[in-house]
């Protein structure tokens, strides 16, 4: 038996370089030159629509899917260079949680959690002891002898998580782990993953199509489209300064300005020689508490209506989002927006206001 490696080598926890994968010859690539590095201890999210290639990507990390080209290095080890026995041993050091839980229907909770240990050849007594440690970690002490059919979705995923952690891996892969759960259970499971990451020094790679998941637990995020990573960075940066249109659409789901359709049409027409423009303003950075609106109104001679506003938090950093209807001379509005941008605020005028 090869002992699983629990001690990450120096360097990134996962390094994917130049990954390519095409399922059908001549078809669209599922992975198109994807490179990615995960730092030890971070929660990294990959977000994308279905078919973007994120599921293929996460499955290359433990080689459930073999890339056509590129390299997969996990904890400093080149997985593509391993033989079958070596790969099986390496997989024991990588936990994986699935969207549909993938529990054995005919095994109890305890037997499901003990399965990876059984596969690794651990004797029954040691297995029982390890399972007894894992059950309280996911709050399922009372369910140890229940069968999956007797559990709720959230409880099933807790079993899945405990099973993924049974071999004490240093890396956890979450394949749409909360996509089959209701919002309340999703929040619960995400909180659990986050706290386990903190307690067990895990590195977590998760894929999701829900920006809310990224916002709730990720440190960094990558956005995938058509088999490529089109944008990546710290979650707060990507959320507040999305560069790509796809990213903006994802971000809008979470940061939404909350302006009902038709709002602009209901505002009174601007006086002759003036304009009325609607803008979304993100308040962040050192000047986010400065009375920017009254200063702009005074110094640039503008009338400003606050159409909507709220304060939110991403990855522990607060920010405010406001929709403003600004009325004044075109040059004055441009100057005011320029001044505000200079303070580090993010101003957007081409927002899908009807949404």
């Amino acid at each position: 038996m090869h002992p699983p490696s629990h001690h990450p080598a120096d360097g990134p926890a996962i390094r994917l370089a130049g990954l390519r994968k095409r399922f059908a010859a001549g078809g669209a690539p599922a992975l198109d030159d994807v490179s990615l590095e995960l730092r030890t201890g971070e929660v990294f999210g990959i977000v994308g629509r279905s078919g973007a290639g994120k599921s293929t990507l996460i499955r290359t990390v433990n080689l459930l899917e073999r890339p056509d080209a590129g390299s997969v290095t996990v904890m400093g080890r080149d997985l593509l260079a391993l033989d079958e026995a070596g790969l099986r041993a390496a997989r024991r050091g990588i936990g994986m949680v699935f969207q549909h839980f993938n529990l054995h229907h005919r095994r109890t909770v305890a037997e499901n959690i003990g399965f990876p240990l059984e596969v690794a050849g651990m004797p029954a007594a040691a297995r029982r002891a390890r399972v007894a440690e894992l059950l309280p970690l996911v709050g399922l002490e009372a369910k140890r002898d229940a069968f999956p059919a007797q559990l709720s979705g959230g409880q099933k995923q807790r079993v899945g998580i405990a099973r993924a952690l049974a071999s004490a891996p240093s890396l956890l892969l979450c394949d749409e782990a909360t996509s089959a759960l209701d919002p309340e259970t999703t929040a619960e499971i995400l909180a659990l993953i986050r706290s386990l990451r903190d307690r067990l020094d895990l590195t977590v790679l998760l894929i999701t199509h829900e920006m809310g998941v990224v916002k709730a637990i990720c440190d960094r995020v990558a956005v995938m489209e058509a088999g490529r990573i089109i944008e990546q960075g710290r979650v707060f940066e990507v959320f507040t300064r999305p560069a790509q249109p796809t990213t903006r659409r994802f971000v809008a789901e979470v940061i939404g300005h909350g302006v009902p359709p038709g709002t602009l049409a209901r505002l009174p027409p601007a006086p002759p020689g003036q304009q009325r423009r609607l803008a979304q303003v993100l308040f962040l950075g050192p000047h986010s508490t400065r009375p920017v609106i009254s200063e702009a109104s005074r110094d640039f001679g503008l009338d400003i209506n606050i159409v909507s506003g709220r304060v939110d938090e991403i990855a522990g950093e607060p920010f405010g989002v406001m929709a403003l209807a600004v009325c004044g001379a075109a040059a004055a509005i441009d100057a005011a927006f320029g001044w505000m941008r200079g303070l580090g605020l993010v101003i957007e005028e081409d927002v899908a206001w009807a949404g």
Partner: protein
Amino acid sequence: MGWLTPTMQDLLLDAFWETLVMVGASAAIAVAVGLPLALLLQVTGRGGLRPLPWLNRPLGLLVNAARSTPFIILMVAIVPFTRLVAGTSIGTGAAIVPLALAATAFLARLFENALREVDAGVVEAARAMGASRWQIVTKVLVPEALPGLIAAVTVALVSLVGFSAMAGAIGGGGLGDLGIRFGYQRFMPEVMATVVLILIVFVQGLQSLGDWLVRRLSHR
């Protein structure tokens, strides 16, 4: 009930015993050979753990050929083989050979279907946890498919009871044979009716036992 003489009672009892032996022995052989065959078909099939078309195709063809040959023809056609295995081509023992062959092919397909029903996600999870192919077969595929496998055995047993009635053609005996010889050829409809009644109760019992086991093992 004047026809139910002590001699007739003995005949019925012997015939029932012969049916039990034929069905039981051929089913046991069919399970022992059919399960590995089904696993081979499933594992080497498309999307299996180790797709091997050059092995899977001929194997599938062979199983289908055995399944599509009418039992009465199969029984006669393999007489040389039967003689080789059982040492004789007539009698209860000889009847077991063609019965087992037919049941093996039948059961292999039913088993394969049951194995295919196993959630692909559970297999993938086992792969992700570092399970070997052998471990996936023994710890995932077979245990997860067990209720389906039991249901398949139940169906095969019931079919075997029907097939065994034809075994009279090579002197296999059994209830079906008794019904034909006495009920039909000697004009004793009450014997035929009794035989049918016993078979109905027997089959019903098998089916109930099978269903009960499946329910007990499912945990769904």
